[in-house]
């Protein structure tokens, strides 16, 4: 879902960059103020973890392979804004070192995957907890939250492309949602099983103070 350079028009990428830059600056200021999170190494390590976990490919039907994205995972474990900063770091490195996503589209990518796909997924989790409140159905809420957040992020990317006049919404939205429905399914199952495993091994993570 990384949008490259040249697909967004000027008004879209400038405004998305301003929005994401402003939110990121606010989150960083909060991180600096919070006495508990003089935890810069932890965030750096978590970002590296997301990156490394994305290397674990798993086969999807039809010979393609999917990988874990990890936004919702980080937000639920470390808190929404720490997760947002982590995903912004990952996306910045992907843009700078791997050219996965363009420089001018970086703001839009951070908005889609960092804000909608991760922080949005974190709040969706609380919504789904209202429906699946039991302790045993917790993984179901994780799975629904991450699937929905992947779909929302894909929908936002399609909307941004259509606002730029690059791909029409009637074509882009079904294509993005269709391809991400399957990716999101993988993401959902893996997020749920990884979080359930952490819940089993180290339950104190889930009640840790978060930011």
């Amino acid at each position, binding site marked *: 879902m990384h949008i490259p*350079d040249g697909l967004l028009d000027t008004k879209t990428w400038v405004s998305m960059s301003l929005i994401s830059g402003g939110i990121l600056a606010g989150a*960083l200021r909060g991180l600096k103020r919070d006495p508990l999170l*003089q935890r810069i190494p932890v965030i750096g390590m978590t*970002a590296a973890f997301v990156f490394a976990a994305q290397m674990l490919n798993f086969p999807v039907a039809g010979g393609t392979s999917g990988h874990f994205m990890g936004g919702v995972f980080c937000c639920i474990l470390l808190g929404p804004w720490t997760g947002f900063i982590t995903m912004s770091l990952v996306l910045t490195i992907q843009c700078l*070192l791997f050219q996965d996503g363009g420089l001018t589209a970086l703001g839009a990518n951070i908005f889609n995957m960092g804000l909608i796909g991760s922080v949005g997924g974190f709040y969706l989790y609380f919504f789904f907890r209202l429906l699946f409140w039991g302790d045993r159905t917790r993984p179901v809420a994780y799975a629904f939250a991450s699937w929905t957040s992947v779909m929302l992020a894909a929908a936002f990317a399609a909307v941004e492309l259509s606002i730029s006049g690059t791909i029409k919404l009637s074509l882009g939205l079904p294509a993005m949602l269709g391809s991400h429905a399957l990716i999101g399914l993988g993401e959902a199952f893996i997020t749920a099983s990884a979080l359930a495993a952490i819940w089993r091994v*180290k339950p104190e993570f889930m009640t840790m103070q978060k930011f």
Partner: protein
Amino acid sequence: MHHSYIDKYARHNSPLHRLDARTKIISSILFVVLIAVTPSPGSVFLTVGASIPLFLCFIGRIPISYLLIRSLIIIPFAGFAALSYAFSSSSDDILWQWGPLRLSSEGMSNALILLLRSWIAVSAMILLVNTTPFDSLLKGMRRLKVPALFIMLLSFFYRFLYLLWDEVERMQRARNMRYYGGYWKRQVGIMGSMISSLFLRSFQRAEMVQFAMIARGWNGEIKLLPAFPLQRRDLMVLLSMIICLVGLWLLRTF
């Protein structure tokens, strides 16, 4: 530690590698922005724009094939957008038609413009990271007033990345030795426990690093050596790059 293929050529030696990081960062950003904001670029503009990365590639002694292969990363998105452009034009000059699919020459040229534009931007970025080691890139960004906290996070990230990368490779090897594939539900379970143990290990390691740093008097700030001045050569190159870009901007409608 055998993962140097990320920015394979960053530590080679060439006139481009010896330039100050700030010069390269500013001129790449200006170039990418110029390519991205030009509303309807003409063919001369695109040709000159595309030849700049190729020329710099030659000066920086980076193989063209490497540049071309790395730039294939734009294909999934830009390729889809280009296809939708090629087939969605409403003009009359149809080149090829099959049912509702109509390939017009106007659509073709729009698709080509989109692909070229995206390619030029991505190859400028590839050149930037392959002529600048990552630490000097960060140093340059710091001097250009990117927030210190963000730079610190990025440098921690980069430092830990290779460590965890090795860890993942070891875990994958261990899994492949013990596991012969199987039902998808089991695969997902294994993936989940791999990811959770990777997370717990990395978290523990980061906390240990943090305690060690605090024990040695770290208070959340990293001190830098005094600013290193730009050489006259770097300023000259920056100035000539800016003049080139203004020239390119004047060419935008041709």
